[in-house]
């Protein structure tokens, strides 16, 4: 432990000297030092306000460019932003650091102790093992020093004694330190309010030349280094800087300003609008469908193939392989695939053939088991249901593919159905399926994989068709109603796109801007 502290000191010293050396180099730079620049003019009209549409902990600064930015002497390279920090922040930082360091030390002790004990035992048995010693032994800073077994044993004994003695002490120190930290955090608002006493300006960063705004986004966790407290008076200042950082404009100060979180995100109104529109469409058409309106849907060959394929499997006496893809159960494409699986499994149960569902994710497997089970129940054949037909393979892309390829060649399913999210493995699966002589029906929303399915499968549901498949297979009016809603939403989208495009072209960009989502 002592040598670790020493090391830290040396590192800090090194860092400081390097930093100092670097600053020196800039100052004596002979090329740029030739003509001394006059300081640029400061920014004007500096304003600070809470950043909109966020969770708080952020302030946005806006200003008008310095007269020397892009015009005048054109000497501005960037704008440097400062915030006023009360010294209390240092107290908080220090406490935070010691909490985390103490915790790290306790954690490290837990790993080091058995290793040190092991090394010690080994060394005592056979001093020759010094060369293969895995444990870092503290050594004096002396280049002539030669590590001997005796020294190593003594150092290890020291280390072990140190850990044994200080481990519990450190462990017990964490809680009091944490309480101190909480207390220090509670005092922060007051410390900020004491501006300009007991604090100083610190640089936050630079905004590139030509920019007129800067957002100081802090962390919301009080344990984070960049924490900015909400509802606390903050002060900012901006300076224009030149190539030579020591030549800079006079500072412009702004404040006090407080950050706070918003309860509504105004930039996302267009999304809300579309969601509500869709919601209304869905409810309307579902109601219409319930009342018995005749809803036409155009035939999809991929869907019609499903029935034939199940019939074919029954004739051949071979199973049906259903893959849900690589998505987890939170992904909508997987959820859509569950619905299709339900329909397919019901037909499978009715035809009394069998289905195999190898899964990539345990949760997906659990849901798929429920789905298949209830489909068998619906078909009135719950006795035929075998839970083992829906099983987990592995959660590693190409291992899954290898295993499924093996299943395809050994079980020789009559039909392979791929629905859901597929990545690079799409072609591997589909080609192996063709080799095994299976009829293949695929549906995915992964654009990059659609070409491969189109090429290798007999029927492919492209993109949105995957999401319509369940409604098509179920033929329930309620679900067909929601297809109608999708179509009307498409009409709205096309109309909006056309109006927006023409509007932008004819010099009326307001419409396009209205629908722009920000944030």
């Amino acid at each position, binding site marked *: 432990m002592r040598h670790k502290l020493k090391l830290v000191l040396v590192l800090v010293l090194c860092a400081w000297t390097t930093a100092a*050396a*670097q600053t020196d*180099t*800039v100052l*004596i*730079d*002979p*090329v*740029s030092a030739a003509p001394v620049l006059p300081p640029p003019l400061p920014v004007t009209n500096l304003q600070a306000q809470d950043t909109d549409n966020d969770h708080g902990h952020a302030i946005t600064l806006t200003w008008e460019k310095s007269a020397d930015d892009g015009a005048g002497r054109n000497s501005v*390279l*960037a704008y440097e932003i400062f915030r006023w920090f009360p010294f209390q922040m240092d107290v908080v930082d220090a406490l935070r650091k010691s909490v985390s360091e103490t915790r790290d030390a306790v954690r490290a002790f837990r790993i080091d102790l058995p290793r040190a004990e092991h090394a010690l035992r080994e060394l005592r048995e056979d001093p020759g093992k010094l060369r293969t010693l895995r444990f870092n032994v503290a050594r004096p800073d002396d280049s002539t020093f030669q590590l001997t077994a005796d020294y190593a044993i003594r150092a290890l004994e020291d280390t072990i004694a140190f850990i044994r003695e200080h481990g519990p002490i450190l462990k017990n120190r964490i809680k009091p330190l944490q309480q101190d930290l909480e207390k220090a955090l509670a005092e922060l608002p007051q410390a900020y309010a004491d501006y300009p006493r007991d604090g100083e300006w610190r640089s936050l960063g*630079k905004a*590139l*030349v030509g920019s007129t705004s800067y957002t100081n986004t802090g962390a919301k966790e009080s344990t984070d280094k960049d924490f900015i407290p909400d509802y606390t008076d903050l002060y900012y200042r901006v300076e224009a800087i030149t*190539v030579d950082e020591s030549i800079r404009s006079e500072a412009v100060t702004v404040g006090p300003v407080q950050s706070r979180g918003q309860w509504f995100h105004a930039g996302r109104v267009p999304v809300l609008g579309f969601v509500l529109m869709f919601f209304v469409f869905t409810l309307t058409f579902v109601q219409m469908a319930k009342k018995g309106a005749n809803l036409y849907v155009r035939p999809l060959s991929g869907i019609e193939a499903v029935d034939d394929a199940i019939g074919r499997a029954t004739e051949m006496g071979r199973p049906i392989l259903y893959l849900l893809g690589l998505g987890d159960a939170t992904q909508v494409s997987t959820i859509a695939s569950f619905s299709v699986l339900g329909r397919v499994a019901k037909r499978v149960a009715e035809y009394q053939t069998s289905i195999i569902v190898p899964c990539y994710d345990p949760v997906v497997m659990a849901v798929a088991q429920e789905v298949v089970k209830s489909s068998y129940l619906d078909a009135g054949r719950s006795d035929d249901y075998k839970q083992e037909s829906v099983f987990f393979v592995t959660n590693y892309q190409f291992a899954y593919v290898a295993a499924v390829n093996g299943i395809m060649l050994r079980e020789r399913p009559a039909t392979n159905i791929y629905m859901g999210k597929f990545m690079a493995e799409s072609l591997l699966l589909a*080609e192996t399926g063709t*080799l095994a002589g299976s009829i293949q029906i695929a549906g995915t929303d992964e654009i990059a994989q659609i070409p491969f399915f189109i090429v290798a499968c007999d029927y492919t549901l492209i993109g949105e068709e995957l999401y319509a498949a369940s409604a098509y297979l179920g033929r329930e009016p309620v679900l067909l109603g929601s297809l109608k809603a999708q179509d009307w939403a498409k009409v709205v989208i096309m109309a909006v796109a056309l109006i927006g495009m023409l509007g932008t072209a004819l010099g009326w960009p307001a419409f396009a801007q209205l629908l722009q989502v920000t944030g």
Partner: protein
Amino acid sequence: MNIFERLMQLDRRWVFLFLAIVCVAAYAADFEVPIVVEPEVRAIFQFIDTLPKGSVVFVPMDYDPGSMAELHPMTYAIVEQCWRKEMKVLITALSQNGPGMADQAIRDIVDSMKVPKTYNGVSYPAREIVNGVDYAFLGYKPFPAIVILGMGQNFRLPFPLDYYGTPLDSLPMMRNIRNYSDIACAINISGTNATDWWISYGQGRFGFPLAIGVTGVSTAQYYPYLGSRQIFGIMGGMLGAAEYEELADNPGNAKDAMRVQLSAHLVIIAFVIMGNIGFFATRRKRKRGQAEGGR
């Protein structure tokens, strides 16, 4: 069963076997693939080739080991060309995991400069490449946009010291180099979106000649900049690298891989054409059969 029907029902394993044999043979063989150099690559080569001795070529290597396979050959060819022509090279690595790899690449090229070579009919003697005289490697600094802007003012702003910790003014080569106005051109070889900044912040603001080398996947998206003359050349992926190696008469990994790539592509195209010939031949027969059946 005539030949076309056989062609239609060819077991895919013949395709696999043929492809595998061709690929392995192409990998093992030592034949030269004719590489047709596109004008956007030739522009880079000729620009560098016609530079006078002692000019400074700036090569920012903004990629990490992930895209090494495609981009390393470009760097090797360009830097060696510059050194053979007795030019100076300035290198940065604005990708976080890149500097170590870039350093290794520089050492490799320095080693290969120790033997005399003949490129495009011109013999070049062996040369000892000296750090600070023939090249300077500035290393990595975060925030590429700021670094690129800062270098436009003075290289010493973002890089007071080079990668090896030497102050820039102690390097003989850097004494006369202040900012972009002192370099002949910049060839940005990049696997990240730093290319966007080189184009808009670097070239856009300071107007030096810029060419880029990017990964195959992102090649298509940078072609518009060629049309608007913001860049004077572009090398895309393995193909672009191979083209440059061809121009520089300095075959390396990219040209090696191109042999296999090309053979594989040819095999695939040949099979597609064969499949279509078989398809049309049998279709005519099928149609005839149907017609006869109808009669």
